[in-house]
């Protein structure tokens, strides 16, 4: 899907969302039953670097400052973090962390945060642009990944075919929507056959979890069987020793 397709399907009555520098997106739109929403995003397959991250965080913080609790919709069609010496020199880790923290702060201030992924997002960009909202929705064209299989093959020195075979039996490392849904990273998957607007309205209506339930969901979906139990055991031991 193109960005326009996505925007049209999400906001059929129109929107004031505009492209900004460094592949960023920013503006306002309306969702039936919720009123105004803030839209931010990184699109066009642009790698997420320091320039985009600081702009996006700025938009998010401005929304928080507006104190209107309007939902924030983050549209993502990026690639990975910008792999460049200059970005690392400037401290890309701080910029991505800042974006992530800003989204968390917005959520804490009552803004419902939703990331909609309709293209690529890998590694650090996946964390900052997709996993930092309260909900992550995979739209048609979503291609999330942590690391592609050829890269995994290069690093682990295991043959590509063996990894591809393994990827079919476990969601634990394979790229794609399905494995990331199974482990609890992706909240919902929307197909193209129905308009997105009512679904977004529906999602925004659902109660916000008071804490991070993704490990619980991963357990229920049988994609990540250990994380929730391990975290709970550690917490229980900590409480017992208190």
């Amino acid at each position, binding site marked *: 899907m193109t960005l326009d397709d996505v925007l049209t399907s999400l906001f059929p009555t129109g929107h004031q969302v505009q492209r900004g520098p460094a592949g960023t997106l920013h503006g306002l739109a309306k969702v039936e039953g919720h009123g105004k929403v803030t839209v931010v995003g990184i699109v066009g397959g642009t790698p997420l670097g320091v320039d985009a991250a600081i702009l996006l965080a700025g938009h998010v913080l401005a929304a928080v400052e507006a104190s209107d609790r309007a939902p924030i919709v983050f549209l993502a069609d990026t690639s990975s973090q910008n792999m460049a010496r200059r970005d690392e020199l*400037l*401290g*890309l*880790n701080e910029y991505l962390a800042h974006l992530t923290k800003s989204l968390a702060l917005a959520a804490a201030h009552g803004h419902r945060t939703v990331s909609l992924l309709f293209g690529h997002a890998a590694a650090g960009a996946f964390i900052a642009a997709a996993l930092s909202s309260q909900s992550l929705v995979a739209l048609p064209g979503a291609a999330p990944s942590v690391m592609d299989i050829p890269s995994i093959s290069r690093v682990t020195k295991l043959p590509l075919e063996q990894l591809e075979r393994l990827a079919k039996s476990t969601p634990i490392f394979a790229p794609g929507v399905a494995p990331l849904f199974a482990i609890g990273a992706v909240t919902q998957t929307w197909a193209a056959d129905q308009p997105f607007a009512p679904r977004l309205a529906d999602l925004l209506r659902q109660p916000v979890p008071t804490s991070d339930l993704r490990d619980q969901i991963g357990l229920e979906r049988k994609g990540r069987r250990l994380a929730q139990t391990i975290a709970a*055991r550690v917490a229980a031991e900590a409480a017992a020793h208190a």
Partner: protein
Amino acid sequence: MSKLSQTFKADWYEASARERIAGLLDAEGFTEFLGPEQRAMSPHLAQFDLTGAFDDGIVVGRGRLDGRPVLLAAQEGRFLGGAFGEVHGAKLVGLLRAARDAAGPDGPHAVLLLLDTGGVRLQEANAGELAISEIIHAIIEVRSAGIPVLALVGGRAGAFGGGGIITACCSRIIASEHARVSVSGPEVIETNKGVEEFDSRDRALVWRICGARTRYLTGGVDRYVKGSIQNFREAAIALIAHTPAFELATLKAEQRRLSERLQRFGDCRDAPEIWRKAGLPEPEHIAEISDDAFLAIQRIKGADHDAR
């Protein structure tokens, strides 16, 4: 005995995760949660013909720092590069949630993260990545509950990938000269963008781009310490009492700080260019001088901040 041998035992870089804990905390009373005897190991490694670790490469528990109760996690950088897998990550998530739930007068005074990680463990990449997001989420909850989270970096694996992002989500960051804090590793950039972009075998360059000195001078690290465990301990004790709150004002200040950095130094490609622009003395030698001489340098304006 030589002058160097005496300090050897206390060297952060050389020490294991458990040795770091032993040297960092007060002598008595470290309690490990989900210890190695419980064999909470990764079930995913065997299919890659790898053996696991009894603690999955991370030690979590409770102890005291200068008498104050703290929770602590230490990554073992020698096991799979300290990388985050499902169990490894979940142990840290559990620890942070425990800190959040225990917040209050009798709760922990801080959570210490002894990071030593190459990032996500590729053999369980999805679980590791999501764990990193959960850890960040939990760090923010802990900080929001008024408990500082301190990152201590100085091991051989550095803090790369999601580990670099986690670092910058903490309230304060302490690092020694060997530390590297970054998102994409030099090898990854070289593989994707070519050796002209980043020659990962030029180790001096690697440290100029993402080493502790570069980070400290521009404000990416709050405290630069000489590499002994004792120095990390003293810095942690000193910093616990002075940490930024997680609130709008803090993030607005961080927005200003990072925007300014980008404006001033956005066209630089090597650290000495930044140092020259900032007017630091003898920028071409800063990477070479002794720790003592380095610590005597006045940091770049704004590098000492509460904006994190």
